[in-house]
């Protein structure tokens, strides 16, 4: 038994909305890199949150070194030697690298409770970074670092706590190929030099053979299998990861394809997108599939003029247009519903009506004043049309449910007369009822002659709603699939570069 460092037995967790866990049992051996594979919503992150004390489990047992332990807070996990490097970096951007690394246990000047021993702090940080082979000056302010370096700081911070179990959550999504190779050699060193074990959460199949010793597959909150990497192959892993295809439960309305409304030719964004070309028709829903980091969100931004492109042309109604800023995109009828509604799409503390007119102020202004009466009238019309549940048009958007916020955004773009809708993760964070509402709204947008580009990490929803799918892999279109050809398995293969 001394080979086993961590054992999870029958871990259960129920949520009303998020992915739940049912009877998950997992064994992690000492000094191994154990890959945890699964699609979005399979329960990987939830399981890791249980392990780090961020989420309490409903039932189940956790053993470390054969002893039963309770993990009810992140502090418990830390004491037990469990550290996690998060997917979305959790650094303090305005602090130095060294402060970030030792955020919880900065060396203090002897006899003082609140004077930091800066020299010792930088010294320790420098030593750690050097040992890990990270070329970073510990005095640098974090916001001045690029993504890969920030991630190195994250890793250094996790390792500063001398963990025996290190959890990496999709660490390569923000990294380029060269940086991935570098990261892998760091991880292998951590295992060989420090004797730590690593749980490596990913949905990138190809990485498993590069880094892991064993692999477990999760699906729908259950652990499907665990195997040594040498004893398995991509096909059987894919088969275990994906559930049955359930395209048919999505309310996808067949709509006759109209004329070409949007075309992209040879669009590239430095280091992120390569020669993307496609056509979009009126009434069509075009899906963009691909893993995190495949360039799918960059594409959304580039089409909206929010990301500078190195080459490429965009055509609206077969006319070439210049789109180098969101303003130009809006003028050309392009709308972006961004991934992060509250941060990027809405003014949360302003009223519903003010948000609705935000992309189209000119229509509502006279002599620099906004015509409140007109604004309210239109807002009320759209509140009724889209069934937005609110007592009044002057309600702050932050008070609405996520589903209704999404509708406010759609109203905003409809008021701006958009005809090309780029929906980036349009149902993320929504409850199922609201998701169904968004799907039906997409039908109606398509029916009214708009073209829709739908980006989603939920493969079933893409397959369910789209007429056509582009599968991105490393910033290129790996494959175009028609609705009837597409299956989770096929998309998965092309997305992993097979």
């Amino acid at each position: 038994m001394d080979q086993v460092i961590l054992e999870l037995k029958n871990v259960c967790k129920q949520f009303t909305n998020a992915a739940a866990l049912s009877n998950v049992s997992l064994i992690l051996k000492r000094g191994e890199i154990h890959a945890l594979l699964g699609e979005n919503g399979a329960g990987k992150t939830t399981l890791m949150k249980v392990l780090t004390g961020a989420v309490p489990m409903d039932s189940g047992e956790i053993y470390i070194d054969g002893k039963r332990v309770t993990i009810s807070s992140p502090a418990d996990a830390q004491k037990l030697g469990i550290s996690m490097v998060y997917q979305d970096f959790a650094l303090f951007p305005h602090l130095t690298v060294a402060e970030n690394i030792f955020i919880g246990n900065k060396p203090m000047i002897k006899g003082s409770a609140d004077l930091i021993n800066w020299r010792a702090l930088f010294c320790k940080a420098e030593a750690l970074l050097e040992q890990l082979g990270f070329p970073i000056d510990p005095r640098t302010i974090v916001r001045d670092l690029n993504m890969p370096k920030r991630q190195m700081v994250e890793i250094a911070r996790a390792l500063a706590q001398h963990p025996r179990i290190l959890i990496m959550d999709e660490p390569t999504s923000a990294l380029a190929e060269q940086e991935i190779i570098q990261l892998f050699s760091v991880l292998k060193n951590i295992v060989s030099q420090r004797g730590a074990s690593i749980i490596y959460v990913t949905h990138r199949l190809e990485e498993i053979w590069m880094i892991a010793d064993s692999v477990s597959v999760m699906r729908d909150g259950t652990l499907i299998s665990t195997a040594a990497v040498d004893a398995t192959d991509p096909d059987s892993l894919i088969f275990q990861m994906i559930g049955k295809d359930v395209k048919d439960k999505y309310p996808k309305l067949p709509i006759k394809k109209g004329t070409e409304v949007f075309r992209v030719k040879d669009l590239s964004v430095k280091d992120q997108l390569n020669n993307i070309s496609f056509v979009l028709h009126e009434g069509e829903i075009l899906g963009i599939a691909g893993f995190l980091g495949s360039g799918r969100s960059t594409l959304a931004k580039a089409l909206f003029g929010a990301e500078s492109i190195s080459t490429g042309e965009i055509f609206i109604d077969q006319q070439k247009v210049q789109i180098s800023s969101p303003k130009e995109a809006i003028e050309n009828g392009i709308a972006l519903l961004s991934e992060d509604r509250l941060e990027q799409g809405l003014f949360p503390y302003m009223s519903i009506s003010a948000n609705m007119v935000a992309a189209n102020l000119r229509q509502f202004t006279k002599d620099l004043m906004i015509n409140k009466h007109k604004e309210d009238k239109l807002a009320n019309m759209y509140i009724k049309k889209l069934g937005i549940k609110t007592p009044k048009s002057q309600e702050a958007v932050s008070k609405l449910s996520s589903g209704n916020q999404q509708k406010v955004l759609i109203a905003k773009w409809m008021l701006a007369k958009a005809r090309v809708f780029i929906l980036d993760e349009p149902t993320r964070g929504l409850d199922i009822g609201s998701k169904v509402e968004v799907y039906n709204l997409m039908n109606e947008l398509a029916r009214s002659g708009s073209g829709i580009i739908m980006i989603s990490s939920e493969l079933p929803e893409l397959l369910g709603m789209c007429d056509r799918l582009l599968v991105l892999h490393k910033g290129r279109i790996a494959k175009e699939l028609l609705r009837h050809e597409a299956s989770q398995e096929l998309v998965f293969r092309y997305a992993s570069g097979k």
Partner: protein
Amino acid sequence: MFAAQRLEKIKEILLEKKQIDVVTLSSILDVSEVTVRRDLEKLEGQGFLTKTHGGAILKESDANPPQQEDDPLKEEREQIGIIASHMVDDNEAILLGSGSLCLEIAKNLKDKNNLTVVTIDLNIAIELADCVNINIIIPGGYLIGSSLSLYGDLTEKFLSDMFVNKAFIEVDGISEDRGYTINNAQQASVAKAMMKITKEVIIVADYTKFGKIAFNQIGLIHNAGKVITNDKVPIEFKKYFFDEEIPIFTTYQL
């Protein structure tokens, strides 16, 4: 476009613009000027407009569209009809049950090609009667005078010999426990017969029918392939149908 439709369209245009010329009308409607003139004559006969040299002007007394029956759900019903029509392809055979929603669907099928419509509702048959591109089949049977729909052994026996791609059935109640229900026992019996002879059952009901149970059950929730209703349907039902893997279509008027 068919004559009846065209006349409606001309009325619409005139109500909006008050006056119009023949040339413009002929290009909007994509028919010859002769046809337009003939249509205008008809409408003049109805007292809707006054013909002028090269066009027509609206008779102001008729400026308000004819008063509709007092139906608060009129718009909702029309929308369901439009959504349903998207699910019908050319060359298919479909079944339309009885009721105002099925009639709304029929109104939106007129542009389909080589469509076969089996219906037990005489209103629907009449609505589609002048569409040469649609084959209409009406079974025999007893007639419910108030709704002009057919029922009884004869109707059911007639239907049992057919098979269609899709059946649109309008119901009075939808609930998790009792599934789809209909008030009238005779109509419910025909509806059950219709559900047996189709590849796919599509249930249509406005949002007020959800959570209600009518007297006669025609099928469980899973007996439907799709459900079409309005956005106002309670969100719990949107979730419920999705979880049960039955697409639920709700309409918006954008």
